């Protein structure tokens, strides 16, 4: 599979590492700098911000899934005391353009050239002026003296909708005669691509066995605990706009605002205060709507969504159907994978092929499959738009692939762990070329890794042999225990860039400014660790500031497991540059050569003559402009440096998960007793923080596996509008999680960092499903859809029982799908 020239390409991807100083604070379990504030109620989240004269907004949303606005009457609402204004889509026409959220994430020309996807752009209006396409789509905004009053006013607005036919199922949406959501697109296909490596059809023909199956992953909502919000003020005199919003991507919001409201970029400041999680990136209608109304009214306006709005529109993800054909031999070796999958994109495909191609890029997983063909379709339906949610395509495709491996193991009579091992990419095959490009257009080459060792480490951790004994004993007591595995790859540290400015003040205190923007990941701590090592100070000397477009000219933001890799590298490089500058200035002060100097814990000393020293503050003072400046000739003042890291492509993290479950055959209730992971995210910046990321991801994945689903009825009405219907895992459902690490430092960046933000969420649907199937053996229950709710599992058990009674064990496939064996 090696392509000519790729070895050179790989060498070119490496960043020189000569100047990297050894890790001292990186890798330590330092206590987080963020905590003292946050545990004291001194966090400043969006809804905590108050600006004098501030008014409050509430958004009116479409109650119909597909319709045309026939009449709109806000007179009663406007008559209410305390109501300032009501704006509709028509009021915005010609003033605020529509937007394509992912439009900024340009698809690289190389990728277009290699994969040639069909993407049909279609913008979403900030407020619908004519047609509405999903329940929850914003149609009007009220501004009033309080949130209570604004919500009262919503009730008084009358909108007549002419209802249009609805389609909620992606397969139905593809059928001839289906209602077409956006007429100008011709049909409901918003994006389509095919990517392949090897000759799949030939391999399938040759394969001794072929499995055909269908796998589905339900729609999950991101559910950051903090509801989203926006606060905007517009300066009447200067026209300057200041916007606070719960966005992990303030620079992107600023770019959009500039284009949509026609304000120069540098007259807009976007600030992201403390954020209560994210789990799905994005920009939203309200990010433009609220600044627009604040400007129109000449008053600060704040909007904070409530949880029902959040469950309606704030980041649905997943919702995929995979139809697969898999060729394999008697030894359980998978020879070919053909996967045609549909992403139910909802009413606006805002992210082009981000999620669908992510699924394709990760489909092969850790397995060495000679031929693959992946065809992805983003299909429009009358549901809320789907966007990347923690994992973004990986959990879906990993669920498919790891179920397939287990099914192959069962069909060939091979132990599931052994079958998994036989299919893994072996260390001697590294660097492994996947034969397809990543989303950035660069051919996928797996980063340094050892998958069989990872699996062995996990088997030791769970004590696989001991578990099989425990399982047999439990079986004798009538208890059904099972174990399931999942392995995944995580392309992480996506570009195109991230920057850091590192500056030392005249007291010797260091500040790092970055365009990455943490929402719980602890970057204020981990970036301080990186900076401390590369500069020669301690983490206590470093403050990390982010989430404000005035801090740094360019920024991408925090999502896609990218910030430790990209902002971490940028910070390290910039800190190293500051160190060099400090040594050069200190050489001037101490009248020695800079090569005789060392900088540790904020003090520059002459090597071998420790009494001759200057503090970093002294150096910063010497670097200040003015007559007292002691800069070497030609050097610019200010002890600072800026670096934008442009990754050559992603790094590849990986992990293997095991779930141990107990299934109650009578009720269909599944309890996860233990969950164990071995992850490889390269050089860890702070293992405790990595473990926290894994734990949180696992809980999110567990929700996806067992309880969480955004459900729409056939008429397009969402049925999961509160936490009574949408079930997040609690302490009661989430088991203790054992996390171990395998450390294979990345070869892509000089610090060896790989991302770890999403991996935890990738494995659980597959591991838990496999564990349930294992617990119910010898019954052949074929789980092909998550979440696996008790009533669903009971049905599957019934079907499997009936199947084994009738035909001696041919598996039942859920949903009457296309499963069959040839």
């Amino acid at each position, binding site marked *: 599979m090696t392509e000519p020239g790729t070895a050179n390409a790989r060498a070119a991807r490496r960043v020189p590492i000569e100047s990297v100083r050894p890790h001292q604070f990186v890798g330590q379990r330092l206590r987080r700098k963020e905590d003292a504030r*946050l545990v004291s*109620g001194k966090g400043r989240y969006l809804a905590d911000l108050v600006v004098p004269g501030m008014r409050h907004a509430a958004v009116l949303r479409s109650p119909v899934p597909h319709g045309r606005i026939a009449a709109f009457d806000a007179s009663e609402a406007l008559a209410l005391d305390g109501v300032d204004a009501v704006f509709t889509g028509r009021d915005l026409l010609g003033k605020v353009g529509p937007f394509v959220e992912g439009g900024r994430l340009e698809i690289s020309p190389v990728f277009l050239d290699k994969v040639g996807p069909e993407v049909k752009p279609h913008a979403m209006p900030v407020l619908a002026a004519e047609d509405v396409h999903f329940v929850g789509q914003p149609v009007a905004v009220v501004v009033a003296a309080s949130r209570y009053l604004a919500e009262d006013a919503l009730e008084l607005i009358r909108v007549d909708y002419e209802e249009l036919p609805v389609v909620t199922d992606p397969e139905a949406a593809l059928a001839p005669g289906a209602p077409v959501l956006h007429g100008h697109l011709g049909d409901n296909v918003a994006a389509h691509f095919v990517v392949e490596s090897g000759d799949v059809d030939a391999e399938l023909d040759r394969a001794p066995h072929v499995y055909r199956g269908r796998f589905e992953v339900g729609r999950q909502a991101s559910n950051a*605990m*903090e509801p989203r919000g926006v606060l905007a003020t517009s300066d009447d005199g200067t026209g300057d706009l200041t916007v606070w919003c719960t966005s992990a991507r303030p620079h992107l919001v600023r770019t959009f605002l500039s284009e949509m409201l026609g304000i120069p970029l540098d007259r807009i400041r976007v600030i992201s205060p403390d954020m209560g999680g994210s789990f799905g990136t994005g920009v939203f209608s309200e990010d433009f709507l609220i600044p627009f109304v604040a400007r129109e009214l000449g008053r600060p306006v704040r909007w904070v969504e409530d949880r029902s709005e959040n469950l309606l529109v704030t980041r649905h993800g997943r919702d995929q159907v995979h139809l697969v054909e898999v060729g394999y031999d008697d030894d359980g070796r998978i020879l070919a994978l053909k996967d045609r999958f549909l992403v139910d994109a909802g009413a606006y495909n805002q992210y082009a092929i981000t999620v669908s191609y992510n699924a394709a890029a990760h489909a092969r997983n850790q397995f060495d499959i000679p031929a693959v063909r992946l065809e992805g379709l983003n299909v429009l339906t009358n549901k809320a738009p789907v966007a990347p949610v923690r994992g973004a395509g990986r959990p879906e495709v990993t669920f498919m692939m790891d179920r397939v491996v287990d099914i192959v193991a069962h069909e060939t009579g091979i132990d599931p762990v052994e079958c998994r091992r036989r299919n893994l990419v072996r260390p001697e095959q590294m660097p492994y070329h996947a034969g397809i490009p990543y989303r950035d257009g660069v051919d996928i080459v797996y980063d340094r890794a050892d998958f069989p060792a990872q699996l062995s480490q996990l088997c030791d951790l769970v004590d696989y042999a001991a578990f099989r004994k425990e399982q047999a004993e439990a079986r004798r007591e009538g208890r059904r225990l099972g174990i399931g595995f999942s392995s995944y790859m995580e392309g992480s540290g996506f570009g195109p860039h991230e920057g850091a400015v590192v500056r030392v003040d005249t007291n010797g205190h260091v500040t790092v400014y970055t365009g990455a923007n943490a929402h*719980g990941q602890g970057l204020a701590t981990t970036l301080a660790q990186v900076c401390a090592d590369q500069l020669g100070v301690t983490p206590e000397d470093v403050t990390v500031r982010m989430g404000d477009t005035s801090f740094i000219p360019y920024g991408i933001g925090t999502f896609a497991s990218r910030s430790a890799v990209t902002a971490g590298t940028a910070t390290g490089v910039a800190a190293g540059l500051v160190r060099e500058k400090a040594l050069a200035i200190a050489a001037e002060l101490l009248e020695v050569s800079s090569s005789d100097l060392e900088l540790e814990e904020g003090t520059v000393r002459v090597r071998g003559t420790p009494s001759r020293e200057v503090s970093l503050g002294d150096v910063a003072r010497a670097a200040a402009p003015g007559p007292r400046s002691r800069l070497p000739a030609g050097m610019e003042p200010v002890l600072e440096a800026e670096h934008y890291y442009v990754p050559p492509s992603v790094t590849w993290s990986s992990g293997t998960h095991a779930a141990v479950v107990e299934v109650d055959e009578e009720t269909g209730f599944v309890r996860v007793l233990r969950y164990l992971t071995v992850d490889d995210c390269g050089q860890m910046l702070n293992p405790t923080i990595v473990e926290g990321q894994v*734990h*949180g991801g696992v809980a999110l994945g567990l929700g996806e596996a067992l309880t969480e689903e955004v459900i729409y009825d056939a008429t397009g009405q969402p049925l999961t509008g509160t936490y009574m219907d949408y079930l997040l895992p609690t302490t009661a459902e989430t088991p*203790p999680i054992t996390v171990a690490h395998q450390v294979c430092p990345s070869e892509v960046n000089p610090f060896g960092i790989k991302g770890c933000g999403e991996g935890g969420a990738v494995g659980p649907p597959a591991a838990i499903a496999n564990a349930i199937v294992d617990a119910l053996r010898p019954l052949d229950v074929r789980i092909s859809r998550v979440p696996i709710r008790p009533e669903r599992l009971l049905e599957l058990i019934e079907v499997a029982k009936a199947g084994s009674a009738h035909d001696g064990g041919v598996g039942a496939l859920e949903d009457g799908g296309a499963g069959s064996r040839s």
Partner: protein
Amino acid sequence: MSERRTVTVEVNGERRSGSVEPRTTLADFLRDELGLTGTHLGCEHGVCGACTVLLDGRSVRSCLMLAVQADGCSLRTVEGLAAEGGELHPVQEAFSAEHGLQCGFCTPGFLMATLELLSESPQPSEEQIRSHLSGNLCRCTGYHHIVKAVLRAAETMRGDVAASRA
């Protein structure tokens, strides 16, 4: 708009009053009238527990109560946990030491619920902890480190009590 009522409460040992519409929730009263924004609103329908405060020593969901119902009561919120000089309460300290928080949005609710638990059961088992905290949602941590934090806090507080008796 309906007429306003004056509500007087004792919050974190201090007497505070404010004027509210009768429909104002206790959470909005604390946040908007008294400026105590450490109490967070995650769902406003009584499930997530982010808004948990102690009312006369018992945990309540301040999004489900009206401010007028709390008139004359004594309240404790996250702002009242640390000592005068700013020294963290053992529960706060333990959450930080065990990495029991990430974004921190759910944290005030967890801290208050933990305080209630530890006042009732100074030596809770892991199972008791999980059961007591099952009414609080956290999307970031997977709860693993939260449980450890509560065990650590319990241990510290027992130690403190023992030390003060000695």
